């Protein structure tokens, strides 16, 4: 079947199998490999993107369901070679180590601040519950998100 999705501002159209997950569409058809796959149970959040402005795990959505929608991936955040304030906050606060969960974590964190621009430490921790990181112990991720919120 044919799906048309605007990814990072560019309108795209591809033939996919009906069972294709959005994450596979993004990685295999749109060739954007910044969105990572860390599990097969929608538990880890590594594949979090924005669909029509809201953070969503792209492994929980069929590409067909996103037909006609607009997706932003980690590759679409920087503008004119400048990283998004959330990306900068992660860098400045050492909010990443191996970087595998990072694209999803950053997308989820931006989604969190869209809904709650001034969260507490605890609200950040609860808000990122769906994104797992094995390296940082979350300490500096929370610090990064709070720093971005206070900018």
């Amino acid at each position, binding site marked *: 079947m044919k799906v048309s999705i605007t990814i990072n501002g560019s309108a795209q159209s591809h033939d996919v199998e009906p069972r294709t997950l959005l994450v596979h569409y993004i990685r295999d058809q749109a*060739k954007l490999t910044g969105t990572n796959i860390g599990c097969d149970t929608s538990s880890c959040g590594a594949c979090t993107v924005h669909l029509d402005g809201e953070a969503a795990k792209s492994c929980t959505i069929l590409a067909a369901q996103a037909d006609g929608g607009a997706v932003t991936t980690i590759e679409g955040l920087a503008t004119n070679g400048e*990283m998004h304030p959330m990306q900068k906050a992660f860098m400045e606060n050492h909010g990443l180590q191996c*970087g595998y969960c990072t*694209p999803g974590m*950053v997308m989820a964190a931006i989604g969190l601040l869209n809904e709650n621009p001034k969260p507490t430490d605890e609200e950040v921790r609860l808000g990122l519950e769906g994104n797992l990181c094995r390296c940082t112990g979350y300490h500096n991720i929370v610090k990064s998100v709070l720093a971005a919120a206070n900018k």
Partner: protein
Amino acid sequence: MSITQERTNSIIGTRMLRREDPALLTGEAKFTNDLVIPGALHLAVLRSPYAHARIKSINVSDALAMPGVVAVYTGKDLRDAWAAPMPCAWPVTPDMKNPAHFPLALDKVCYVGDGVVAVLANSETESRDALDAIDVAYEPLQAITDLEVALSDKTIIHEDLGTNKSYTWNLKVEATEGAVDEAFKNAAFSVSERYIQQRLIPMAMEPRAVVAVPQPFGGDITLYSATQVPHILKVMTAITLGIPEHQLRVVAPSVGGGFGSKLDVYAEELLCVALSRKHGAPVRWVEERSENTQATIHGRGQIQNIELAADKDGKLTAVRVRLIGDMGAYLQLVTPGVPLLGAFLYAGVYDLPVAYDFSCTSVFTTMTPTDAYRGAGRPEATYAIEVAMDALARKMNIDPYELRKRNYIKKEQFPYTAFSGLTYDSGDHLAAAEKAMGHADYAAVRKKQATQNVAGARKRLGIGMTSYFEMCGLAPSRVLASLNYGAGGWESATVRVLPTSKVQVVTGTSPHGQGHETSWAMIAAEKLGVAPEDVDVLHSDTAIAPLGLDTYGSRSLAVGGVAIAGACDKVIDKARLIAAHQLECAAEDLEFAQGTFSVKGSPDKAVPLAAIAFAAFTAHNLPDGVEPNLEAQYTHDPKNFSWPFGAHICIVEIDTETGKVDVLKYIAVDDCGIQINPLIVEGQVHGGVVQGLAQALYEEAVYDTDGNLKTTNLAEYLVPAACDVPPITTDFTVTPSPTNQLGVKGVGEAGTIGAASTVMNAVIDALSGLGVTKLDMPASPNNVWKAIQAAQGGK
């Protein structure tokens, strides 16, 4: 401490932001599964659904007819592809039993997840779809998931070995024969404890992935793998497949965490290489998470019996340890050595007389093979001694910190030769503990506890501590020889000053999240007096960095970082000869500072390193006997392990009605010697602590009695999320290591080594008033609640 004390404008010690981050933050970084390889075939592996079974027959004809399927192979089809079984590099005893282990099973499967059939297809989905069309007939056999049952040999897993026991390894050291027994006989106090180190699943966020790419002519092959150990993998793949080593290149692209689980040589790596050669086409494989939980190694898996003897003041007089190690179904790369890495540490940080009796018997089970997982043997040892110290303090009815203070090796005793003959390089346990106690406000917590933990109180407060040593910086090659390890412990570095004075550092370490590019550039910049941004760090590709022993065991800085400093020294030595030639003075009259050679006492007579680099490149006017170019290679073989240490404290509150443990505060005071980049050091401690805390409270690889893993994915295996863990208070003491020129020790495993016992001591401290003095990990709500009920019912 040459570069640590009197430094000006120092780069070392600054919180430099990581150069790795922009690529990782923008999605530009390429992990193995991101590599675009045209024409690649996709490998999928059919895995055993049985823990222990004989393979009666395999029918692949339906699978071969599936769309996109190129080939299907059984273990027998590929038997001739292997020149040797899969490698175990650590035969810990001469009589160690090691079953032949091939990438695909031949006659028997020995754990759920054991590879049985390989499918090659044109796409990943086609390869996976074809797995369902393969028909394997099994004759199920008895599963063995209990270590003591395994030792009974009632059912033998590898029949040709005649036993499930792999080895027994002893470390008995006594000042005089019988000293340990004597100490226990004369002990004023003693404890005898049994602890379970549950199996853990490492769960690096990036599952494993492999691509093998044959070159069109000549037989060369490039293996891309999500590995911690490209160098070891190259040697082992060459041996296992009988490929000339020089025709193999191994590359580790961006690697998404390892924690020991990517310190291995895996079946899928060997299959991809073998099948890519067979088909003359690239072959790739990516692991699904539910595959990862079974096909990638597990960690821990020990039954620990520890006995402490003490005199009337609580001074330890002897330690006796009996371990049973769970090897799983086969020996992976360093599986049998993991308990040995802890064997020297069961006396912890205490001044023990020469009266130590350690013995480990390791046994095969029908579960996923175990191997090194963050800390590898040392968290287990630290847990046993530190939880046992609390048990001893309870028995003596004294404060656990007071008991520790009576036993610490004192600052003035370092360097300290331990009962084992190992020398602990430097330390100050009391200083670290005092600092941690200050952050905890220990006396105030004890006071609050006295009022809060009254009879009938629903929420009980607990505080626990750990003092630890992290034997790391693996490792002096001669010591490894004495432990029968199959390789050395050195690390290599090449430092090259390019004609335009930019610097290349080539390292044999292979990072997967640790920020080596940033830290190594800082070391070279400090040594050479150049800007860190003028230093490039090359790694993780055996064609670019041919010599190396990779990254594990908190070794990269203490061995590899020191190698870089040594290579810089050699570059400076060579540059000095050229500078002396140019300035027409004796080399020994020159001093080198801030990237410039100048004549002592005549600072106007000077030449910058940049000019010397260009002169070395043009080679128009070099002193006799000096080769062109400014480059040096140095291999560092450490004289000693490095001994980071620290004190951790945890404060918990437990809801006795639900069993839920809330961590109110976690304090980590660590001492890893000189810190190159404190930002990175803190990050390592945070992550390490949470992995240890997760063992204490959440994680466990659960098997049923039929040998089925019940925790096969991230919905069932509880890797904590942000809301499950507390903020962490980090602080440091700085005791330089006297054994290397940077004064560094290493920090990758410290947090994990200290955390599990710290949390469990706090949990037991909260509950001991209810009669709970023993609790196996994880201290989940269910386990805590049951322990409370059992203790209360028993009263």
